[in-house]
């Protein structure tokens, strides 16, 4: 049976994934929009930076975050001078790291959805007196709804399943940074295979259900308006 520690890890993980997904909706959406629409020469560089967490081993990202957020790092200097202390071993630290790590999982599907809209509906909106911001909310967002569904579900599931980055900067503190994946690792390492099975199996089922829900929620692609 799952222990109370396990339940703590589950609660913390869901909390983390929720906060991260909300944060990505706020931060990732403009990035996806910019990448989908810009003709700037910076596009490929910014796109690459956003995609980087997808190809980097999480431990690499975690290690650099540990350095960056540490007392000698840029972020560490910043948070300390703002009186926030240091980010490693804290929940906000995990949130920031997970947000970075899940960024490509959020941005890419949404960027594709934005690109699929094409110029025409936005041009129509402009000729109907909608400012670019207005057109974004009244045309682009509703048309990209399937993209938002995919992006949110993927980032949520990905944050739940994230391990390497958390391991690097978490410090295994109960109710603060000890998430499910770390708890599974602890169980496996301690040869507590029964407990590990409870959590690992649960995670497998959860991830499967999330993906099923995502596909069910995604509206069928309607034939493009002729």
């Amino acid at each position: 049976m799952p222990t109370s520690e396990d339940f703590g890890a589950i609660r913390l993980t869901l909390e983390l994934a929720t906060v991260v997904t909300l944060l990505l909706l706020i931060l990732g959406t403009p990035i996806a929009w910019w990448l989908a629409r810009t003709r700037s020469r910076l596009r490929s560089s910014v796109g690459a930076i956003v995609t980087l967490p997808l190809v980097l081993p999480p431990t690499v990202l975690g290690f650099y975050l540990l350095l960056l957020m540490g007392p000698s790092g840029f972020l560490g200097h910043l948070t300390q001078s703002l009186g926030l202390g240091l980010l490693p071993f804290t929940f906000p630290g995990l949130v920031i790291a997970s947000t970075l790590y899940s960024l490509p999982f959020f941005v890419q599907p949404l960027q594709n959805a934005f690109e699929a809209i094409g110029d025409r509906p936005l041009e129509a909106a402009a000729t109907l007196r909608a400012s670019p911001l207005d057109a974004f909310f009244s045309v682009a967002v509703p048309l990209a709804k399937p993209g938002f569904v995919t992006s949110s579900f993927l980032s949520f599931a990905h944050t739940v399943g994230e391990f390497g980055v958390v391991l690097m900067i978490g410090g295994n503190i109960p109710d603060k940074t000890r998430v499910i994946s770390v708890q599974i690792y602890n169980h496996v390492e301690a040869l507590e295979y029964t407990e590990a099975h409870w959590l690992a199996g649960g995670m497998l089922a959860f991830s499967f259900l999330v993906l099923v829900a995502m596909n069910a929620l995604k509206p069928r692609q309607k034939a493009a308006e002729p």
Partner: protein
Amino acid sequence: MEETIMKRIVFGLLLLCSASASADEVRVAVAANFAAPMQKIAADFEKDTGHQAVLSFGATGQFYAQIRNGAPFDVLLAADEETPMRLEKDGAAMAGSRFTYAIGKLVLWSPSPGLVDARGAVLEKAGFGHLAIANPRLAPYGAAAMETLTKMNLADKLQSKIVEGENIGQTFQFVATKNAALGFVALSQVTKDGKLESGSAWVVPGKLYTPIRQDAAILSRGRNNPAALALAKYLRGAKAGAIIRSYGYDL
């Protein structure tokens, strides 16, 4: 015609198999904390015996799971006593082949000079941010650190300051990057040739914790491998012993 070709191919394959079997190669699973000294020892071992040691580094718990599931290792150099014992009980290690190849020493270390005093009194004052230790449930160094804190009656007081690395390597990383002000790490991680490399440290007296015995065992797969037996013997020799000591381990 075709038959002769087939025969040749089969013969060639047999030759290949026998060649790899007779090559004196030993595959060794090495606890991550012992990586550096083992590389040196393996180089000498090859020079002195002609056998080749192929090293894999990793966490002892993972090695256990891998070996139980048929990983091709001949010898395990664990970070603890329990794992080789358990493998022997499981029948995955050769009975009676276990021996202690090194005894780890615990040190309280900080990269900041002068933070850690010679008696570890810094712990009582508790004027620091985070204290890093290895996960006591997983890593022997972590268990030793908790034991030390308990003996010093500081475990409860410092509980809120403790951050855990999943292994001793990660614990060292927390401290080295100064995200934790100080931490209990392996003496082998902070000394070179018997001297502290940087910062300040307190070598925890042996009476405060159970010795961290790192045991080795010959695994079932290495039972008939002369190179495996040779390595086990070599590890107990004087030459290997000197290297092990120079990295901050006891024998």
